[in-house]
């Protein structure tokens, strides 16, 4: 069994176990991906991540049913989709339809107000379930440093700004107080420092993996396999299982490289997938290997584990966590952060072609796409735009998309 299969099986079993724990009275949290999961983990409050659950629902091909339902309920058709899919499933209340029997009611909710839909979605969750709502503020960064990844690991105070970090720390302290009430436990600051150090260690292992794959003569593991190996440990970051898994992942990748294994023996073109996963059709990622020797070697999840997560604590792990969280999503989508980072990554991974998912409905993710496109083209990368959605297949035409990417690959090969 590969590491990816192990991770997927772990997550499935974990959710089943979570259901059993909840049935026995345990509380769980439903949270957005860009919130401080570390606080929940450390206070032994299990979390389900909104965007992960959305991807699972989508992978089970259930999204069209829920989005039709969403419009039937009176929500308009242009509302963001990625983060709303689980809410609509919950509103429908047919848990037999949902993957793995659906989610019970959470005890606590947490979202960051990075884009306008998140507070509203979580307000509706709170009204639907009675769960306690925690919203973290998301003031924008007025002076974004283009090469943020160089500064983010150590010099994050200036990068993210003292006032914004003070705010995030204060709001996280409120969240800690809520978790103390919920769990009856006292937050152990010393223990938290050790826990944060373990997370940094986990992300450094993933940094190694990224560098291994980036430098490999041929890609030993495509992005469909990389994603569960990165993101499932990320949802459990700092745990013994996560640490063990990322090490096994690194060893598997190193082993494949050492043996000269390649997912495409005939690799000629290296591609990057820009944007969230295409969760309803992940086989798309391998569609061009036989025909063009074109391999998707890069998605944001692996390299972002290092650049987006490693933060020196400088003696204040809570503040380091604030630095990790306070612009997490923005770095992936907003200029100049996204365009500069993608160009750097494209060069590091020797990318020839970028396929860019442009989600029109999730505007927070969609805005900034064209700056990224321009920057990549200027850097000599061929870019194919895919105007679609990460979880909604209703506008996805697989054959047409394959044809478009194939045409770009043909053009590249023709010289």
């Amino acid at each position: 069994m590969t590491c990816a299969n192990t991770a997927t099986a772990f997550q499935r079993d974990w959710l089943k176990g979570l259901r059993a724990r909840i049935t026995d009275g345990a509380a769980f949290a439903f949270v957005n991906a860009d919130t401080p999961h570390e606080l929940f983990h450390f206070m032994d409050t299990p979390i389900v991540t909104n965007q992960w659950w959305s991807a699972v629902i989508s992978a089970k091909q259930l999204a069209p049913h829920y989005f039709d339902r969403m419009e039937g309920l009176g929500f308009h058709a242009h509302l963001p989709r990625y983060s709303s899919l689980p809410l609509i499933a919950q509103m429908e209340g047919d848990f037999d339809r949902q993957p793995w029997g659906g989610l019970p009611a959470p005890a606590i909710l947490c979202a960051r107000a990075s884009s306008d839909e998140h507070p509203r979605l979580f307000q509706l969750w709170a009204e639907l379930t009675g769960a306690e709502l925690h919203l973290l503020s998301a003031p924008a960064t007025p002076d974004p440093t283009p090469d943020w990844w160089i500064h983010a690991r150590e010099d994050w105070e200036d990068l993210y700004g003292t006032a914004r970090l003070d705010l995030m720390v204060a709001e996280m302290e409120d969240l800690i107080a809520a978790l103390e009430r919920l769990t009856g436990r006292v937050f152990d600051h010393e223990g938290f420092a050790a826990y944060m150090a373990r997370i940094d260690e986990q992300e450094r292992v993933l940094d190694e993996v990224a560098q291994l794959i980036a430098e490999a003569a041929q890609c030993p593991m495509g992005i469909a396999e990389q994603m569960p190996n990165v993101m499932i440990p990320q949802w459990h970051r700092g745990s013994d299982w996560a640490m063990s898994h990322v090490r096994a992942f690194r060893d598997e990748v190193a082993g494949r490289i050492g043996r000269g294994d390649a997912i495409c023996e005939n690799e000629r073109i290296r591609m990057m997938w820009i944007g969230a996963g295409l969760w309803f059709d992940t086989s798309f990622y391998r569609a061009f290997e036989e025909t063009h020797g074109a391999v998707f070697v890069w998605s944001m999840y692996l390299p972002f584990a290092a650049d987006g997560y490693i933060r020196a604590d400088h003696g204040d792990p809570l503040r380091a966590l604030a630095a990790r969280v306070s612009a997490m999503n923005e770095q992936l989508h907003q200029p100049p952060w996204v365009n500069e980072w993608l160009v750097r990554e494209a060069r590091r991974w020797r990318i020839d072609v970028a396929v860019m998912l442009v989600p029109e409905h999730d505007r927070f993710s969609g805005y900034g796409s064209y700056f990224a496109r321009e920057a990549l083209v200027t850097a000599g990368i061929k870019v194919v735009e895919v105007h679609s959605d990460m979880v909604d297949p209703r506008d996805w035409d697989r054959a047409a998309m394959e044809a478009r990417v194939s045409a770009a690959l043909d053009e590249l090969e023709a010289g």
Partner: protein
Amino acid sequence: MPVHATLQQAFAERADGVQADGAPLVGVFGEGVPLPLVAALGGLAVDVKAPPLSDETEGPYSDLVASVTEPFLDPFTTRFLHRFAAGAFDRFATLLFARDDVAALAAYQYALELRRQGRVPGAAPRLHLWNLLHTDSIPAETFNRHELERLVSHLEETLATRLDHDRLSEAIEAEKRRSAALDALPPGGRDVFIARNAGRWMTPATHAALLDPLPRPRPSGPAIVLLGTACDIPLLHDLCAEFGQVRADIQDYGRRAPQPTGAADLLRDIVHDPLAPRAAPPARFTRALHDTIKSADLVIASLDTNDDSFGWDLPRLRDVATARGARFLNLGFRPFRPDEAWRAMARAGIAEALA
């Protein structure tokens, strides 16, 4: 109600028609900026979000801007960027962007990036992001104070002046006199919409002097409440005129967002604005929305396709309105500059809703 010609002209020409009379121009994109602060520091606050009416047919077009603006970018942002690249704001000292407004945030980020890349020449005007949290908490209050200090420093530096308490008090009083003059106007109608919004492109004193106090017309016909995303033209007021009276319009440009009422705390009224799009928690916004439609006979919603927030309230709004015996009409997506076909559709919808 005859609208003073000066107001008509200001409404039509907008930022392009502003006569600075020596005062440095300070562009404002979005609601929530404390305008008396700008005035107290000697600047003339000017809305830069809404383009001149002529922009629809004569506005500049930049290939550069087109290359970096997604087709689904908010049209207020797109038009601003084309105008920015064409130098429409070169005579401004600075532009302030309210992070509360998604269109403003994108406009700031895109303009900043175009300039950073050296693709838009010049260093003027300066660009400033105005963060303000609408959360009732000590951390939010602390952060807001910091942002206010940052704004004051930016304006003092840009306008080469120092904040003076007496001038600030005078500016707030001028804003309150303008507010009182606006209070005397009827709540809806094309002329009121134009007269009220024209003030975005002139001083409060000039605006107040041009607003003639008018008796409120006797209510006749159904009471209509307009809800939705920003609409900078009197489109829906025109459409409603033949059917009833617009009693409230809480779309941006339809409503009057709060301004400071005291020099001691420039932010309190703005922070506590329950209809700010990022009011937190959002239940505050929803409650205020429901309060607004209490006396409505007809509630009309229309949204831009970029809406990320208002749409989450629509189903409950419909339920609340109909439970109170009002009719609810969702006109769907409203184009930035609707054509006659859309207007006809909307007119027919209103007629049917009231039939």
